């Protein structure tokens, strides 16, 4: 075997191993979702169910009001995506293209917030939202993730990478600043906006801690909280929990596939020589 072939085989081997490591928990989740309630506890734990039990899905999803949870998660995700995309696009553009007093220090402050761990913000955020009387409301649920500093950072960098000529051309064509932003800058930034939207969606969809803290009534529970509740202090139904987790994953996959298309569309741009 030549050196080149050997190197290639080693490369593929390493990639395959990594891929397996990544996909193994997912496969185990899928396998567990199809097991009998007590099959899970055998020692050593079986890799595959003896008889796949698809009923776990319907049982898990009806044991708790998952339709309601999905709706709540969708509201949270939609609000987060909308809020982050709008604020990231506008603030990113302003930081990239407009000169105003305090621009650099302000941007440094925005970046600085990225270093604060989310868990450290939990209590202050709760106190703020409580002071506004929004605990246990939809507004309180969605309020804290409407702006993302990293999204603003990403959009700023993207706008900086775009040639200014198109915006200047639009200004000469008679467009005001708002029209330049809306008709030229935003369409050009679609790939970056898709990235912001995708990450915002995933973040919101897998949010657990904040929704648990802010939502007291079961009516405001999100999917992740529902999935977690199959695992109490004295009770655990692994197959149901895994079945609900698999179901919770479906919207993420759908959104990812849709957003991926937008990424590719972005690559086909070419108005500048």
């Amino acid at each position, binding site marked *: 075997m030549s050196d080149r072939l050997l190197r290639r085989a080693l490369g593929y081997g390493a990639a395959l191993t990594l891929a397996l490591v990544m996909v193994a928990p997912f496969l185990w989740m899928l396998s567990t979702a199809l097991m009998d309630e007590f099959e899970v506890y055998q020692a050593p734990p079986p890799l595959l169910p003896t008889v796949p039990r698809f009923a776990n899905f319907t049982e898990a999803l009806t044991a708790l009001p998952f339709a309601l949870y999905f709706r709540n998660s969708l509201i949270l995700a939609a609000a987060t995506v909308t809020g982050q995309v709008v604020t990231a696009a506008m603030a990113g553009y302003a930081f990239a293209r407009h000169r105003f007093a305090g621009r650099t220090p302000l941007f440094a402050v925005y970046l600085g917030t990225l270093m604060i761990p989310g868990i450290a913000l939990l209590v202050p955020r709760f106190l703020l939202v409580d002071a506004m009387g929004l605990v246990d409301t939809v507004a309180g649920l969605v309020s804290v993730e409407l702006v993302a500093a990293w999204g603003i950072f990403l959009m700023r960098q993207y706008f900086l990478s775009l*040639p200014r000529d*198109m915006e200047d*051309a*639009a200004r000469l*064509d008679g*467009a005001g600043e708002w029209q330049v932003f809306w008709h030229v800058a935003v369409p050009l930034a679609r790939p970056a906006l898709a990235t912001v939207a995708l990450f915002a969606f995933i973040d919101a969809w897998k949010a657990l801690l904040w929704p648990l803290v802010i939502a007291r009534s079961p009516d405001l529970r999100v999917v992740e909280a529902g999935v977690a509740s199959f695992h109490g202090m004295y009770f655990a139904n692994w197959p149901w929990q895994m079945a609900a987790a698999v179901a919770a994953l479906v919207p993420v996959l759908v959104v990812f596939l849709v957003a991926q298309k937008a990424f590719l569309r972005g690559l086909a741009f*070419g*108005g*500048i020589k």
Partner: protein
Amino acid sequence: MAALELRHLIKRFAGGVVGVDDVTLTVGDGAFTALVGPSGCGKTTILRMVAGLEEPTSGAVVIGGREVTHLPPAARDVAMVFQNYALYPHLTVRENIGFPLKVRKTQGAEVARRVAHAAELLEIGALLDRKPAQLSGGQRQRVALARAIVREPALFLFDEPLSNLDAQVRAQTRAELVALHRRLGATMLFVTHDQVEAMTMAQSVAVMAQGRVLQEAPPMALYREPQTLAVARLIGSPSINTLVGRTTGERFEGALTCTTTAAPHGDVVLAVRPEHLVLGTAIDAAPATVLLVEPLGPESLVRLRLRSGDVVVARVAGEATCRMGDDVGVRVAAGEGHCFRAGDGTRLT
């Protein structure tokens, strides 16, 4: 259409760099003026200040008698064609051309009529439904032009619009731009670093260096009567030959000698166009060695080394009779050659 006036325009960038240094220039109503100069000489900065994309440090921009120095671009009634065309990649050709009308809230039917007219003028009617990415460089150029003419602005600005085209398309587009200028009767300011473009298209050429306009004149006047050594060097291809020496009142004396009416001066640069160097064995010819002969078809360029070590280029009609390594005589044609002060490069008269 309208005349453009620049009055004592100065642009100082952050850090104190002077981009444009006290430029006063007038482009008459319906005139076609070119700004030519090496890159970094400030010509694009002038264009951007006229467009309103850059704020002058001081001075005034007047379009059609109205001072617009501090007005936003949209309020100036100016159209600009960018070096990279700056088409909107997400819009079709039709939408690109119609964009200036759309943002001005022009009625749909009127937009369609004027887009069709502009497209017809530039022969791009068949491309209206394509996206910029599907067009060749020359086609993008036409779309950019159509977008500029569609709203009939008072003034057209061109920022090196031909520099991204290949040689053949460029020559063709030059002729088309001149024809378009004649047809529209529009006032045009054209920026280029290519003196051939400036000379062939414009009615008047302003030569710039280091933020200043060195001379503004019709192309042939600029070529025949450069007022400074820098202008003489910037205009003409191949470059004008320069030799140092002195003038006595009747003659220039240096590596070559020639008659001149220039005042006596001790430190003089003689500038001679290649076509004004004559090869032959006349009495006053200086000896030289042929370094290279470049046949161009209708003419040939002969590169010569004088005894002084200076290298000059002579342009001779048809095929050159000499060869590389030959010893020949060379002299300045009677009445030709410009004398400049060596120090500041000003013309000696």
